[in-house]
């Protein structure tokens, strides 16, 4: 173990160069912002021109689910991958005992909040077609409901209906892939939807994604439902 003076010296030796590095980085990045070329070119025109083929009214939703559907698709994959990685660490579930976790206020508050959150979830999902909102915002609200239920001890990290939960976790990714690949059989590209069905399809996919995203985000919080295997020490 180093002596206190030595530790302080080491800390200074790390922090002074770090501060210089950060300051020069800030200057460099700031300079790059100030010297950006004018006028900027964007993709607004391209998006506006294609809006009528997208099936929805909100440009951000159109980009997410239709023009750049690939990004959204892979991002659901990343979410699922993160969950598999977290589960494989075998962290103990963050369970709460209802007897000790639930004060009268918390229990009543969660009972009153969760139905409201579910309504907000459906609204956010539907709002995504014409204004800000969409599957990820709705999924985040759903996950918040799940975390509240866990913190108040209403649900546990080790689910009894594990198979059903697994379907909910992977369903969004699966349906997205199945529909995206299914329309290839009709002569479209991967994740290209026929414009006449685009609205219904996007709403359907967003609905499935909302459930999956909500469950996955909550499951990331819950810890691993798996029993750690016995390992030899």
């Amino acid at each position, binding site marked *: *173990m*180093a002596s206190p003076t030595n530790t302080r010296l080491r800390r200074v030796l*790390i922090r002074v160069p770090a*501060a210089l590095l*950060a300051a020069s980085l*800030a200057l460099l*990045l700031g300079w790059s*912002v100030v010297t950006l070329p004018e006028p900027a070119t964007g993709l607004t025109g391209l998006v506006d021109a294609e809006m009528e083929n997208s099936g929805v009214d909100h440009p951000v939703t159109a980009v997410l689910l239709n023009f750049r559907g690939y990004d959204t698709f892979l991002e659901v994959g990343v979410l699922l991958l993160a969950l598999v*990685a977290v589960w494989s660490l075998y962290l103990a579930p963050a369970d709460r005992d209802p007897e000790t976790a639930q004060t009268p206020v918390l229990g009543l508050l969660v009972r009153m909040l969760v139905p409201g959150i579910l309504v907000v979830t459906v609204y956010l999902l539907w709002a995504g077609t014409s204004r800000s909102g969409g599957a*990820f915002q709705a999924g985040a609200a759903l996950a918040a409901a799940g975390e509240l239920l866990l913190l108040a001890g209403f649900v546990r990290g080790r689910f009894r209906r594990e198979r059903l939960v697994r379907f909910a976790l992977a369903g969004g990714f699966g349906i997205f892939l199945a529909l995206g690949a299914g329309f290839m059989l009709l002569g479209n590209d991967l994740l290209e939807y026929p414009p006449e069905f685009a609205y219904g399809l996007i709403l359907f996919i967003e609905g499935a994604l909302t459930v999956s995203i909500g469950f996955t985000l909550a499951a990331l919080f819950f810890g691993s439902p798996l029993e750690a295997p016995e390992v030899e020490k």
Partner: protein
Amino acid sequence: MTSVTLYALSGMVVVAVCVYGLVSYPHLIRKILAINVMGSGIFLVFLSFSRRVPGENPDPVPHAMVLTGIVVAVCATAFALALARRVHEVTRSSYLPEEQDPPEEAG
């Protein structure tokens, strides 16, 4: 200075502060927070650029990409936090083994 430049410069400052935090503080939670907030700085820069395009409405493509980025950042943060919890379970320490003498007090 336009508001776009102001937002972009603020985002860059956030990134630089986080680089300092990431390098200087050995506690794992601080490092994870630094990376997470750094991501927010980058999102701020990118979103401010969506206002640079000519026309009334901001460019929707950066918005969609930042939404995607937020989700990926959430995934990475969740996994990093789980790893930090695992490190703590195994070593009973919130510092990496390479940190020979973790500071006694949070600096």
